[in-house]
């Protein structure tokens, strides 16, 4: 019996030791958390390992490449930007734990580009950056809900929403495939629900709609989808899913000799990620695709040239793809926001800077951003292109045709947006 008591005592002692794990003292409060005379600290959580990390794990390297370049050229008013990156393995529990570390231990000024709808939502509820006044800049998801400034007052989106994308696809179909039979493959969750809402607003009538459950995408299920599209005699098939669904579908279709006009959503249309799943890039050839930023192979574009040069030096041997371009572009926009936040940036002045000047920030995007005092909506549209045999998306006929719209019932319009020229040396002015 004595042994049992000892056991419980041991338990109690262990609890004591645990919770008492090194009590960290709070450092003297500076002007703003994460900002010192020589440094601005930002934090990022995203999947660096695991299946969901494919392609995305290049984003921190890309953002750091730009920040290093910026730091080497004087930083932001003499302050160097430090980016603390943590792996959340695409698991909400991890995202919450790591974000807590970023805010409470590393004491970052702002969170940058967290990835995944479920993760961002869990962090918003549990960590509650809004209550702590921590800005969440440029979340890496197309879920339109994060632009809700009442629910997420410190969160800023950057990617165009899934609804916008579906509406623009609908408009393109009306203009180019009138009278054709259209098929749709979509993910049977919020991602797909957003897409369906967009297509409905655009007035697209589908000959066949095929939902798939997230995680069920394989060559075998793709064969089943193809049977349905064939039965409905679809001329155009839209794949509005994740990369693994796109690659399963295109890979299987190539083997079966099934060749409709493919149209790929931007989430599942990244050639590098598709190639990583083991499907040759050639299957993408001639598919229609959508992107908010220029083709990553377009070296005549000043931003693409500038970013790819920096990236090649910082991370030699790594391909310059869409994730890299978006990662660097996010870092570039962040730098401008910090610069615009004044000589002694605070969390509040950082957000105020995006509200007042965010829409005019230089960015590689070919579509305008919607930031204002009342809106945290990022990019608002896409250009339409076709995939080359190498799997790279390129504008049809060599010119970018861009469309803009909103996540509501607003019209889809061909954009006349003129992108601001890149500031000298790619540094915020």
């Amino acid at each position, binding site marked *: *019996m004595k*042994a*049992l*008591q000892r*056991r*419980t*005592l*041991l*338990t*109690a002692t*262990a*609890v*004591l030791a*645990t*919770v*008492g*794990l090194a*009590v*960290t003292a*709070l450092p003297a409060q500076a002007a703003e958390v994460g900002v010192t005379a020589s440094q601005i600290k930002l934090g990022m959580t995203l999947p*660096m*390992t*695991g299946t969901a990390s494919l392609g995305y794990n290049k984003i*921190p*390297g890309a953002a750091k490449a730009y920040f290093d370049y910026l730091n080497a050229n004087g930083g932001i008013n003499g302050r160097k930007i430090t980016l603390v*990156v*943590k*792996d959340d*393995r*695409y*698991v*909400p*529990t991890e995202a*919450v*734990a790591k974000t*807590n*570390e970023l805010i*409470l*231990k590393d004491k970052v000024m702002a969170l940058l580009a967290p990835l*995944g*709808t*479920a*993760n961002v*939502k*869990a962090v*918003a*509820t*549990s960590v*509650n950056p809004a209550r702590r006044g921590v800005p969440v800049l440029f979340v890496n998801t197309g*879920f339109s809900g994060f632009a809700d400034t009442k629910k997420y007052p410190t969160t800023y989106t950057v990617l165009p929403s899934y609804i916008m994308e579906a509406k623009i696809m609908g408009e393109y179909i009306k203009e180019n495939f009138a009278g054709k039979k259209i098929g749709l493959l979509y*993910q*049977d*969750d*919020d*991602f797909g*629900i957003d897409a369906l809402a967009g297509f409905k607003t655009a007035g697209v009538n589908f000959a066949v709609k095929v939902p798939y*459950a*997230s*995680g*069920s995408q394989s060559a075998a299920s793709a064969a089943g989808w193809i049977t349905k599209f064939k039965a409905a005699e679809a001329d155009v098939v839209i794949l509005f899913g994740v990369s693994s669904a796109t690659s399963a579908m295109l890979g299987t279709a190539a083997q079966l000799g099934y060749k409709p006009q493919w149209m790929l959503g931007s989430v599942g249309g990244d050639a590098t990620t598709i190639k990583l799943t083991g499907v040759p890039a050639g299957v993408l050839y001639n598919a229609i695709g959508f992107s908010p930023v220029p083709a990553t192979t377009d070296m005549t574009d000043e931003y693409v040239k500038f970013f790819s040069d920096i990236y090649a030096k910082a991370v030699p041997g790594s391909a310059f793809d869409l994730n890299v371009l978006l990662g660097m572009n996010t870092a570039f926009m962040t730098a401008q926001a910090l610069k615009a936040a004044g000589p002694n940036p605070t969390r509040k002045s950082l957000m105020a800077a995006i509200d007042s000047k965010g829409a005019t920030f230089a960015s590689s995007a070919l579509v305008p951003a919607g930031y204002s005092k009342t809106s945290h909506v990022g990019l608002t549209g896409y250009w339409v292109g076709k995939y080359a045999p190498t799997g790279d998306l390129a504008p049809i006929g060599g010119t970018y045709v861009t469309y803009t719209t909103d996540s509501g019932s607003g019209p889809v319009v061909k954009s006349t947006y003129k992108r601001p020229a890149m500031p000298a040396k790619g540094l915020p002015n």
Partner: protein
Amino acid sequence: MHKSKKQSTHLPLFILGGIVLVILSGIVDELRVYQGATIAVYVIAISSIILLTGYSGQVSLGHGALMAVGAYAAAVLRAEFNVPIILCFIAAVLAAAVGGTLLGAAAARLSGPYLAGTTLALAIGLPSLANQFPILGGEQGLAFDVGFPPLALGEDFTQYKWYFWIAALAALISMWSVRNILNSAYGRSWRAGRGNEVAAQLAGINTARSKVLAFTISAGIAGLAGALLAMTIGTVSPSAFPLALSFSLLTGAVLSGISTLGGVIIGSVVLVAIPEIADVVAHRLGSSESVTTNLPGLIVSGLLILTVLFVPNGPVEQHRARKAKHEAAHNSTKK
């Protein structure tokens, strides 16, 4: 024989533990409080595995799925019907226990790799079922909001401290219950069945029923852990219950000593502390990102191998065995 002693349930000790935790939660900073809540969740989840595997001898690779059942039950009741939070947690226990009974009924006919395979399939398949029913919120999940701490606790009382209090209380209650269940006739019949099923049957134990009961109780506890996990992240979504969760629980159980409840805190602390330790080590060494991100997995795997090699029954059991040996030697020399 020792009837009067057996009835001792160590209640005062658990109450004392609770008081210590309350005091501690007031001293340490917010991050530690949050980690404390996570540790409490793991303590509950791992003790459910120890009960099932260590005492009743059944393997489950699917406890993450049972946690998901509990979490979803609690979240749906909260989101749809605004049920009081305490009832949500009770519902989580009951829902997961029902799931456990069903699984246990199947499990009683299976053993070894077949049981492992069945529960593994559950861990893979069950959470993504949520995508099929709109009421469960799909991939982005459902909010699970236990609400703000009562105002009576003061304005400075943080949300995480509230989470910690709830989780720690739940952990103390479940540890106390599990300990007493294991020391009851049920616990003894589980151990008898684990040791030798035929002998247990000859002794009059209905081993099939006893196994299903173990699964039911273990699942109920796992369900509670799931609901608490959902509380700490404020949401429930399929991706919060990946296969890796089931595996890390099992890892935690092995590190704790699969057949000793007392060591459960060791495993829980290790699971929470390792990523942080790895982070510190990697930054000291200035290693590359790929090292930083893979180091936690490496450390946990290393510890797992070392545990199995050197302290297969866990550090607590090992310590106790050594002590018993020492005492025996001491006593014999005395004679």
